[in-house]
């Protein structure tokens, strides 16, 4: 069995099993935490409005911090947008998703994907440097942050190398790219990467909880 056969076969299967197992475990665990007895009479509120309102209000920086977190805010959006475009609209990726999900969608030209992938990589490296050098960020960062950045950065770099056929044979680069994605999938459920799934529901839940108490979120 070659490295690529392992990476696109058993390696992928194990990574997906662990990913699904971990994500379901954490989601179910979190859902069960939700039921809580009301100690006072809930206020009159629209739970959907409160939930969606919190999702929206937390998508923009709080006014008081607007200036001080502008860099992080902008780079955060650029990074996520560039990542999503690179992951979801590169033709070989769509073929990969199609083999897993059974359906595909239109792709973008490779040149656009190359720009978004390089942007995502550069922004993530800049954010990593900032995290490691900024006193406050450094203080609040844990090993989880650094590992999470690392397991996302490596697929980006190996992906660009595989795309450019640079550094090693294509099949080797593709195998390393797949293995790095698998490492990310395995790390995902047990780390801060879970924010990709948890962020929106958590904001929604916070919004409804505030709504019940009559707090404007």
């Amino acid at each position: 069995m070659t490295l690529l056969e392992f990476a696109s076969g058993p390696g992928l299967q194990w990574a997906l099993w662990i990913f699904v197992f971990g994500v379901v475990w954490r989601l179910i665990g979190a859902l069960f935490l939700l039921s809580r007895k009301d100690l006072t009479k809930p206020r009159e509120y629209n739970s959907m409005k409160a939930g969606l309102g919190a999702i929206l209000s937390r998508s923009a920086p709080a006014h008081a911090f607007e200036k001080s977190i502008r860099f992080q805010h902008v780079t955060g959006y650029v990074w996520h947008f560039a990542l999503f475009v690179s992951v979801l609209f590169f033709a070989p990726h769509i073929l990969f998703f199609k083999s897993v999900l059974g359906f595909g969608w239109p792709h973008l030209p490779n040149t656009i994907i190359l720009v978004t992938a390089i942007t995502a990589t550069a922004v993530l490296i800049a954010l990593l440097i900032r995290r490691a050098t900024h006193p406050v960020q450094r203080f609040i960062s844990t090993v989880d942050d650094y590992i999470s950045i690392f397991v996302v950065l490596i697929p980006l770099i190996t992906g660009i190398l595989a795309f450019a056929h640079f550094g090693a044979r294509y099949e080797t680069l593709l195998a390393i790219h797949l293995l790095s994605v698998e490492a990310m999938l395995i790390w995902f459920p047990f780390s801060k990467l879970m924010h990709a799934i948890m962020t929106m529901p958590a904001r929604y839940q916070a919004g409804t909880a505030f709504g019940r108490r009559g707090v404007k979120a």
Partner: protein
Amino acid sequence: MRKDQTLGEFLRSQGVSRRGFLKYCSATASLMALPPSAVAQVAEALATARRPSVIWLSFQECTGCTESLTRSHAPTVESLIFDAISLDYHHTLQAAAGHGAEAAREAAMEENKGKYLLVVDGSIPAGNNGYSTIAGISNYDMLIDTAKDAFAIVAVGTCAAFGGLPQASPNPTGAVSVSDIITDKPIINVSGCPPIPVVITGVLAHFLTFGTIPALDALGRPAAFFGQNIHDRCYRRPFYERGEFAETFDDEGARKGWCLYKLGCKGPTTYNACATLKWNQGASFPIQSGHGCIGCSEPSFWDKGGFYDPISAGNWGSRDALLGAAAAGAALGVGSALAARARKRKAQAQEEA
């Protein structure tokens, strides 16, 4: 052709001009990635070379490799060089059969001890010697016997080089490649199903010119021919970069000659000279004729998923296994949530007490 005739004499007798011969030498030198200064050496060596003795053993094969090498449409210099070798044993092409043919092989081996080239096509059944025999001799025994006094071995075709189709799962004959059995001789793997004719004559030309085997890649293939992958040399590559893909074999993209990646082309992971040398006197190659590369010069190409599955497709296993993982995760989630609640109740009870 007389046995003592040089290659140069033979080619002249066949009407090949000096100009045509030198053209071939230049092309061969550049194909083998030799500097221009080596052309004269190639020409000199080839012109004065005596006919090398070649013994060709055909084992578990389909004769496609022999067809590829002998059925050139026009008598090219390549095919004439192939004609010029002293093919002392080839049971598909020779008139003799049975013990007479075996006697010819033994005589050639004796006469050219340590100097003859052994060409093998087809894999060797290691599971049971009885699966493939010639004149009652098993492939395994014949290979061991003929290889021991050979100068070098050329494994022609993917079956001889890597096991090929006979080795494909479930490999009923226990097929193995030449290099799985012979470990003490130089082996040149000229893989492909079939290999490109000019690659085998290029290897022969190298052998005639320098008396050595050419530089090989990690899989024992001549690096000059197998050094680059099809995708990097494909004339359809710009369509790949632009994201223009044929979605089916008869859509607009296919008619416009767009990239065949989505239709399972294995060009990016296949190393061969098809995209540059092409086939049938440079007329075309599979991708040019509208079908993706199937990766036939790579080991285990039959078992690397479907020919029409894109390279980036993953084998993610069964849905049941994923559902099982989800169920296990759900069970653990419920269990840990219940345990957390129990701990909370206990703490509350302790607090109240």
